[in-house]
């Protein structure tokens, strides 16, 4: 837009100065390139202090006639630092434009089809550039790469299992039983981020049998499929005030991802190779045994311990299982370029990463092709973005179970003198101390997720008319996200917990396949009208319609009692089949008016209307209004050009957005049963409500953005308050009604918080630059109204600590039984962090760059049940220490057991604060002269370096990592730990070559 306007302006000015050109014959010409030597088209070239100017052509060349020499030319272009050049004679000018550090912060999306300059935005929209995302180090998944980079986001990894499983909460908990994960939109395509539990694991572990029906299989979430290297920028709309334009899907926030596009000019080829390894962050440690302690685990164990000690056979099984160094190998190749209105970007990546447990790992291959083409005299533009992903994750067998079979739970009672290694024939002995032999489980089982995903989006933009002061543009876009997820679980019959010689009720081998097919499609059409008045008021109007369809079908087949060593699902005596389907259709419209008065006052009003088949009345419209105002005080002339303050904006925004009731909340549907060959139907656990309404979030945010000393210091402070009304609760119901739960719109919650960002360019010189930035944010939540009785959710009951929804209390409070009082519930913790702070630093000395990111999460509690399970097995590392019991009488293990026996959950609630060196990278860029000498111009850039993730981790939490979630990524209950897959740190060496 900006470029087109300036071209028009350029033409006008050229016409205006035509007589002058006839008089003054001095013509300046030259070529503009970027630092890699690529030509830069569309650079504005203006003679300083005049309106005389031009733009560079596709090859970066320009010619400009000037009346007099010497003169100063000003070169500016979106994405580059503005430069001045003093022309003293008519010789050809060659200039290298430096990419702007804030290049990607220039515009902010404010409408479904429009964006505004960031300096005019009324919302605090976080942006993450490609450099910030992947420039320091390569993360395994996209959401992992966002940790510590977004003010207002709590990003939690569920486990260290390869292949992801991450929750992102923007500005607190926004839903209790509905979706609380943001909406992801990649190049206009709604992409699916489901976590789909596979088949078979729960069948073996029985994790959900004991009481909590949530998924404890720890599936990965599907945003992990995106390749971070393909991403140009990410914008995060953190609440309804910015996300109202996304209507009924915007309440949990929206993550808008733009992938890389080709740039006109020479074909650019980049090649990137990382190799490295990962290793466990922290061992829990094993109890320091002696004869008496061993004997206390059962008669005879003391002697077994001594024998093993004397024969040097004591094994630290924790290190045996988690002590591997996983090999990391990432390769990325991209080719981009284009000319004459056609641009392309093509990329291929291969990421391979082994886990810290043998036979676990992750392999992802992605192919991307983005094409943009302009036609009809540049009035029309068509874009196609396509992406294919194939990923395979081997995730091991961890987390909670009720059968003692996961590797994690087996370790809780396995002692160092247990004999678990296979004999010379490969036969594993039974573990006498647990229901399974964790070495055997690790070596023989398969738990694999395979994804094949194809995402394609297209858009067509057409300038219906375009005059000096008005324009009308039509935009059509659409996209499809299709994936098939296959989960494969194989538990061979030799396993201790499958072998019927150990227990005749063992299943004798289990083979399971889960197939999930997902197709999401979205279509939209918009008109955008722009008009400027004579006194420089600009009106941007837009209106459009949207339609989305979603369909998902998951089939799970579990075969048990297998034939020989066969694993096909027809090779079993018993087959169990299950299918879950989901379909939804949404339709919406959107209108918005934006008024910009000389960049001084920028106001926006808009409304979105949505209807959906997932509402009680599918054809009832729900309306989501928004309004905002930004005031750029620095444009009013209060400060002169030399003032320390060069930017000062006050802003306020209000918006509403919705969140659908969970799939099925409208219905009370029978579940199938089978007995004696007779198929039957039984009532479900939850009573549906056909009148259910979507949740409605109302958010108000206000803030100040300021720049000092020519923006060398930037400060952004935001306060928000958001209320979620009509909370859809799967609330407790009197179980004697036959339905222990019922869906109802029955409450309201509120989040309030502040976010502050400070950027400082500390040193700016030719040889040395130092930029630093600090993010600080905190959130407080409260259930402000609850129409149903308080209820527990996402835990294992009050005796072990549980989350509890209660009016007047924090949404994320953790309660236990009030053992000192009346035996009711009492608050014993809160998962909400006191605050988070991250500090990123970029230092460059000549060709050497160092970047690092510290991330401090202060406060926020976990429910750590791993300790208790290890205590039951008598093998906890701190079992014999005296640090917990206030009276000093009991050692930690017996103390926790004693408290457990008393129903006191307090010892299991632990502070999950951490300080991490999230990312660090040190790189060297070879200078142009070396490259020219060595490669004769074929190579434009070579970068080598080393980097690491989570290299330093400081926490007082008594397990592998305070960042953990037994119940996966959705919902309230992150932070419950039951013997997870430990998380790892990663160290990598990288080489990047640009041709």
């Amino acid at each position, binding site marked *: 837009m900006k470029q087109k306007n300036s071209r028009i302006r350029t033409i006008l000015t050229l016409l205006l100065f035509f007589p002058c050109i006839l008089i003054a014959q001095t013509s300046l010409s030259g070529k503009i390139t970027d630092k890699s030597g690529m030509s830069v088209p569309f650079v504005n070239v203006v003679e300083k202090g005049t309106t005389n100017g031009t733009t560079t052509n596709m090859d970066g060349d320009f010619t400009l006639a000037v009346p007099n020499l010497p003169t100063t030319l000003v070169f500016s272009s979106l994405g580059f630092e503005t430069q001045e050049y003093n022309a003293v004679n008519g010789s050809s000018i060659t200039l290298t434009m430096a990419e702007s550090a804030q290049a990607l912060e220039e515009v902010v999306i404010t409408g479904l089809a429009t964006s505004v300059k960031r300096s005019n935005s009324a919302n605090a929209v976080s942006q993450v550039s490609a450099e910030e995302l992947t420039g320091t180090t390569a993360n395994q998944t996209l959401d992992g790469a966002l940790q510590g980079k977004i003010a207002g986001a709590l990003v939690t990894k569920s486990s260290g299992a390869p292949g992801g499983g991450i929750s992102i909460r923007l500005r607190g908990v926004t839903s209790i039983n509905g979706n609380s994960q943001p909406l992801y939109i990649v190049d206009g395509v709604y992409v699916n981020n489901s976590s789909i539990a596979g088949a078979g694991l729960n069948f073996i572990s029985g994790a959900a049998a004991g*009481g909590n029906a949530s998924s404890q299989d720890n599936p990965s979430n599907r945003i992990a499929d995106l390749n971070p290297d393909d991403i140009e920028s990410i914008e995060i709309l953190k609440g309804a005030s910015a996300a109202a334009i996304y209507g009924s899907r915007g309440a949990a926030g929206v993550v808008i991802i733009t992938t890389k596009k080709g740039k006109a000019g020479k074909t650019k080829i980049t090649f990137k190779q990382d190799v490295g390894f990962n290793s466990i962050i922290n061992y829990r440690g094993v109890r320091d045994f002696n004869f008496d302690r061993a004997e206390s685990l059962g008669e005879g164990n003391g002697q077994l311990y001594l024998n093993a000690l004397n024969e040097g056979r004591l094994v630290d099984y924790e290190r045996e299982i988690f002590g591997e160094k996983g090999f990391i190998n990432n390769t990325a190749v991209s080719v981009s370029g284009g000319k004459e209105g056609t641009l392309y970007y093509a990329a291929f990546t291969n990421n391979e990463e082994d886990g810290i447990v043998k036979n676990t790992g992750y392999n992802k291959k992605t192919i991307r092709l983005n094409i943009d083409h302009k036609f009809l005299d540049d009035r029309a533009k068509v874009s196609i973005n396509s992406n294919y992903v194939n990923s395979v994750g081997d995730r091991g067998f961890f987390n909670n179970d009720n059968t003692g079979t996961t590797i994690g739970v087996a370790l809780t009672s396995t002692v160092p003198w247990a004999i678990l290694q296979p004999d010379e024939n490969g036969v594993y002995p039974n573990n006498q101390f647990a229901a*399974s032999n964790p070495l055997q489980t690790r070596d023989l089982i398969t738990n694999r997720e395979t994804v094949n995903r194809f995402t394609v989006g297209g858009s067509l933009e057409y300038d219906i008319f375009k005059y000096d002061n008005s324009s009308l543009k039509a935009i059509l876009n659409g996209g499809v996200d299709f994936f098939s997820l296959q989960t494969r679980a194989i538990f061979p019959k030799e396993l201790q917990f499958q072998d019927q010689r150990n227990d005749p009720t063992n299943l004798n081998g289990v083979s399971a396949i889960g197939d999930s097919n997902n197709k999401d499609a979205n279509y939209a059409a918009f008109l955008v009208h722009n008009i400027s008045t004579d006194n420089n008021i600009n009106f941007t109007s837009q209106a459009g319609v949207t339609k989305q369809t979603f369909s998902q079908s998951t089939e799970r087949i579990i075969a048990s009692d297998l034939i020989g060593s066969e694993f096909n699902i027809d090779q079993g005596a018993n087959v169990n089949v299950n299918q879950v389907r989901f379909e939804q259709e949404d339709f919406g419209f959107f209108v918005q008016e934006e008024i910009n008065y000389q960049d001084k006052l920028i106001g926006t009003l808009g409304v979105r209307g949505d209807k959906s088949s997932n509402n009680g009345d599918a054809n009832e419209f729900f309306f989501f209004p928004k309004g905002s105002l930004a005031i750029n005080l620095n444009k009013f002339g209060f400060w002169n050009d030399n003032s320390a303050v060069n930017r000062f904006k006050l802003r306020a925004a209000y918006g509403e957005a919705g969140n659908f009731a969970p799939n099925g909340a409208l219905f009370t549907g029978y579940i199938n049963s089978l007995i004696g060959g007779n198929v039957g139907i039984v009532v479900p656990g939850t009573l549906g409500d056909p009148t259910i309404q979507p949740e409605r979030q109302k958010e108000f945010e206000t803030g100040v953005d300021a720049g000092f000393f020519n923006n060398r210091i930037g400060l952004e402070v935001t306060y928000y308050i958001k209320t979620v009304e009509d909370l859809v609760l799967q609330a407790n119901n009197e179980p004697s009604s036959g339905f222990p739960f019922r869906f109802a719109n029955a409450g309201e919650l509120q989040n309030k918080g502040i976010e502050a960002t400070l950027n400082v360019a500390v040193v700016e010189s030719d040889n040395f630059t130092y930029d630093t930035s600090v993010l600080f944010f905190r959130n407080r939540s409260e259930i402000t109204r609850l129409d149903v009785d308080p209820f527990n959710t996402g835990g294992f009951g009050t005796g072990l600590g549980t989350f509890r929804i209660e009016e007047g209390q924090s949404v994320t409070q953790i309660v236990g039984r009030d053992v000192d009082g009346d035996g009711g519930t009492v608050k014993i913790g809160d998962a909400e962090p006191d605050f988070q702070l991250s500090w990123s630093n970029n230092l460059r000395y000549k060709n050497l760059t160092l970047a690092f990111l510290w991330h401090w999460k202060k406060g926020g509690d976990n429910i750590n049940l791993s300790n208790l399970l290890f205590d039951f097995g008598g093998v906890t590392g701190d079992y014999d220490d005296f640090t917990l019991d206030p009276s000093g009488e009991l050692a930690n293990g017996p103390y926790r057991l004693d408290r457990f026996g008393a129903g006191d959950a307090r010892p299991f609630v632990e502070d999950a604060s951490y300080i991490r060196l999230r990312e660090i990278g040190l790189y060297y860029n070879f200078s142009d002269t070396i490259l020219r000498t060595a490669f004769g111009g074929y190579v434009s850039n070579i970068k080598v370096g080393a980097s690491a993730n989570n290299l330093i981790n400081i926490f007082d939490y008594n397990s592998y990592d305070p960042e953990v979630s037994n119940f996966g990524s959705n919902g309230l209950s992150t932070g419950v730990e039951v013997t997870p897959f430990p998380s790892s740190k990663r160290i990598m060496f990288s080489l990047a070559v640009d041709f």
Partner: protein
Amino acid sequence: MKKYNRYLIVAISILFFASCEVEEGANLNGASTSSISTDLSRGELINASAGVFAAMRTQLTLQTDTQSVIGREYWRFQASEPRYTADLLTANLDSNTFYTTNPYTARYANIKNINLILEGLANSTADFSDAEAASTRGVMNTIKAHELLMVSNQMFQNGMRINVVDEDNLGPFVSYDEALAAISSLLADASNDLNAAAGTTIPFTVILGNDAFSTPSGFATFTSAIRARVEAYRGNYGEVSNALNNSFLNIGGDLTNGAYHVFSLTGADIPNGLAVGINTTSGNARVAHPSFVQDILPGDTRISKVGARDESITLDNLTGNFGMNIYISNIDPVAIIRNEELVLLSAEANYQTNPVAAVAAIDAVRTAAGLTPYTGATDPASLLNEILFQKRYSLFGEGGHRWIDLRRFGRLDQLPLDRAGDQVAMMFPIPENENQ
């Protein structure tokens, strides 16, 4: 003018799209409950009744485990679920934890299954004959009574709800005695319905692991057997005798004859969760309480209900040497009520008034167990001791009979306590979500 035309086009196109109809959503994953309750068809009755028999087994394992553990019949060891050896043995029972809520909820869910059928039957436009309708009511009310009795076993004097037809307007909590009276009367109604339907066919399959119950009059013997148990709990021994007369009691007959829950590993069917190997580790084990072996009479063949472990097993300061051995495979059926219990109920019905009949019944059980006939005193107190002793071994591990029986005779203090601080719970608390 041109400009206004364009706005008009925009406005019209928005209105056009806004009028797009979105199809109403549907539940794609199962029939809705209202499809049964508003009008029950023959086909639906067949599916809905199969669901009722299937759902009788839901949480059966947990209810059996909890009541057996409290009654010190066996210990449940599960490495990842410590509360089996904590709360259940210390009597520190939580009103909102799985061992309280899950069995309770499952029983009422099945009562909802039944109530939806009874409602649908009343509203049915299908061609059910009066006899078919009566037999359906008889079977469903019998099972409903059984489910209510299971709840009353859990709640005991805390009381319970009986009328739960309308989920938005539940009936009151009534006392234990009132609950048993209501259950008894429900069984009486069921018997009347079944008798009225005698000679006809039940319009669905009765799935109790025994073909003898598949006709209205055959099923009535099961109804009466349950009634005998209820009346014994109420102490109405005359009614016990009457009910036993109409039941499938056969003193001297096969003691295992009776009604069973059946299991399989096929499809959506479920396995018998009570089956577990003798030698499993503390990760997942059912360990016979040591007193079972210590107290057993020499030569009692019921010793086979436990198996000696290769090695002793210890968890949470509890050590045992015998694993449970009642169910060998995970598709073995689990008894609902069987002849052995009826024989002992007949002994109980007679111990105060007819010692000879009581001893005859006792001896039927003793003989079957390889023991010599009873030679002890025949005063009521001695006979009661003997009946309870035999019942402990005859119904060992079959649903918590020992706890229930000792409780109704005020003898819970006779149960052995294994660790300092252990206590015997009298009953489960009312689930917190009942808001009582």
